[in-house]
């Protein structure tokens, strides 16, 4: 199978090697067409966002207003903070120019003269690597004023890196925009949507790094070619990041719709010591987990995963063998979302803390059967009641793991234990956490 995003070509990250393999020819081709034609091709290709929501990229672009006095912006989302997701850094390291070329084409299609690549602050190394690639692209005349000469067009655009500083929520598109604006990374209420009211109140499109990196190949080889790869409703290859209990963890580029079992057993080398699989999270920790006995025949694309009650997310596959302590895993996941909740919406700010505390109680062997119901009640109170999707991201793993592994969790709690006070909110507020302890 041909790899679209991470081809096996030595030194492909270098601009000369990229050029000698046809690099930047897609941009040249794009400038011979109108922006509407580009959007139309990406729409027809069926390219869907790779950042989690799997929204149609071409459709998103078409929301950008055609006539406006305001400048337009593109944000390329490389915040990549979802636990289990580590694919964008592969693109920064091994194929940065395809992403840059995709950014140029996208800017042209939506009429943006400035693109910001948002990269998480911890990725010091990858920020340097991408900056080097951007500098090289400027030197070669693929960006900035020199574009006019190189591409024979009136259009110019600039790419800047905006470095984050350690906040998972900044991967959420409206939070990302606030972060670029130099504010706390609070998500914004939608509507208005970014295409109407984005960066500094101007029309803005936000796409994931992997989504953007696909664009040059669609322009080069045509939308028909792309639409025939993998699952017809979610075409293309996906970068599956496999981690946890597998022999060969890593990123594997495979057509969408590849069997989950094939990814785990053929590509990632199976489970160490041939242990059984207890649980798999198919798309990063916010996605509903699957039981080990549920994996047969599961295909890895947005549509197929929906059918089995999960979602593709960022394609981060986390495998857990039969000896894994699922309570510990879930408590760790709950801790993460509690830590990363921005604190704007009460259900998420308070609810994520509740989930963590209840799970830690169960982990300490002090949980009661009613705690399992309480977890689901709290999760349901968060879901759908928040400004952004971090609410769902926190609620789903808890809700679905407790539900799908009810037998497992019931063995870890006691039927006899009951909490001393009926009103548990009241009891936690006034006795369990005296004010003196609340330092943070």
């Amino acid at each position: 199978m041909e790899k679209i995003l991470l081809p096996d070509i030595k030194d492909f990250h270098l601009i000369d090697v990229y050029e000698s393999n046809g690099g930047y020819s897609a941009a040249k081709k794009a400038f011979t067409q109108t922006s509407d034609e580009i959007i139309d091709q990406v729409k027809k290709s069926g390219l869907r966002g790779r950042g989690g929501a799997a929204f149609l990229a071409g459709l998103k672009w078409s929301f950008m207003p055609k006539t406006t006095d305001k400048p337009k912006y593109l944000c390329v989302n490389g915040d990549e903070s979802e636990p289990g997701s580590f694919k964008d850094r592969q693109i920064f390291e091994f194929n940065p120019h395809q992403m840059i070329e995709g950014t140029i084409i996208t800017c042209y299609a939506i009429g943006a003269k400035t693109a910001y690549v948002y990269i998480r602050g911890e990725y010091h190394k990858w920020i340097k690597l991408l900056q080097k690639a951007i500098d090289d692209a400027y030197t070669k005349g693929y960006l900035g004023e020199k574009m006019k000469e190189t591409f024979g067009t009136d259009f110019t655009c600039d790419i800047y890196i905006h470095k984050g500083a350690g906040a998972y929520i900044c991967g959420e598109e409206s939070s990302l925009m606030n972060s670029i604006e130099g504010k706390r990374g609070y998500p914004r209420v939608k509507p208005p949507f970014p295409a109407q009211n984005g960066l500094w109140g101007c029309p803005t499109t936000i796409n994931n790094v992997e989504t953007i990196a696909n664009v040059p190949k669609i322009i080069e080889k045509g939308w028909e070619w792309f639409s025939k790869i993998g699952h017809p409703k979610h075409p293309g290859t996906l970068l599956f990041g496999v981690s946890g209990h597998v022999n060969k963890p890593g990123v594997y580029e495979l057509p969408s719709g590849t069997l989950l079992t094939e990814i785990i057993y053929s590509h990632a080398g199976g489970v160490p010591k041939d242990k059984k699989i207890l649980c798999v999270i198919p798309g990063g920790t916010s996605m509903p987990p699957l039981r080990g006995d549920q994996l047969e025949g599961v295909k890895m694309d947005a549509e197929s995963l929906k059918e089995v009650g999960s979602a593709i997310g960022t394609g981060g596959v986390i495998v857990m063998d039969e000896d894994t302590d699922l309570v510990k895993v879930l408590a760790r996941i709950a801790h993460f979302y509690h830590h990363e909740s921005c604190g704007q919406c009460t259900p998420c700010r308070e609810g994520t803390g509740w989930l963590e505390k209840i799970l830690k109680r169960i982990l300490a062997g002090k949980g009661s059967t009613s705690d399992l119901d309480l977890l689901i009640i709290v999760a349901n109170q968060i879901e759908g009641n928040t400004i952004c999707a971090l609410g769902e991201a926190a609620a789903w793993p808890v809700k679905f793991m407790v539900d799908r592994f009810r037998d497992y969790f019931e063995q870890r709690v006691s039927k006899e234990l009951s909490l001393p006070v009926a009103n548990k909110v009241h009891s936690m507020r006034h006795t369990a956490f005296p004010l003196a302890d609340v330092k943070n």
Partner: protein
Amino acid sequence: MSFKFTQENLDKIEQEVKKYPVRKPAVMAALYLGQEQNGFISNEVIKEVANVLEMSAEEVLGVVTFYTMYHQKQMGKYHIQVCTNVSCMLRGGYEIWDQVKDKYGIDHLGVTDDQKFSLEEVECMGSCGTAPMIAVNEDFYENLSKEKVEEILASLGSAN
């Protein structure tokens, strides 16, 4: 203690400002520079950043407290970050966390008395496929075992 940016850093901030239509977005880069020059983000650093970027100190403080990579106290010369999120945890992240904690006798966001080492339990760093991992300042160390961690820590010297 008053704080003023060096001319070199002021120039760097102006370079950052050029990326954006207004001055404010450069606050994140300016805070990194302030942290680097001063060792941590003091109230004086906040005032200086606010002054340079024509913001209120409160706005700058709001940014500082939102992001975990800005430190309001002096961290160690070697800031050791250990990921214990799920993918690392499944491959021994917590064993490494305990190992580093025990070695220096400090906990999350603790600093050794000689200010040489500090420790942070971090959330997923994107090294899931090469787990477990630690980071020392800006450098990632991946595919670790307890022995490898011991080697890395030994290369940093010992706490006085």
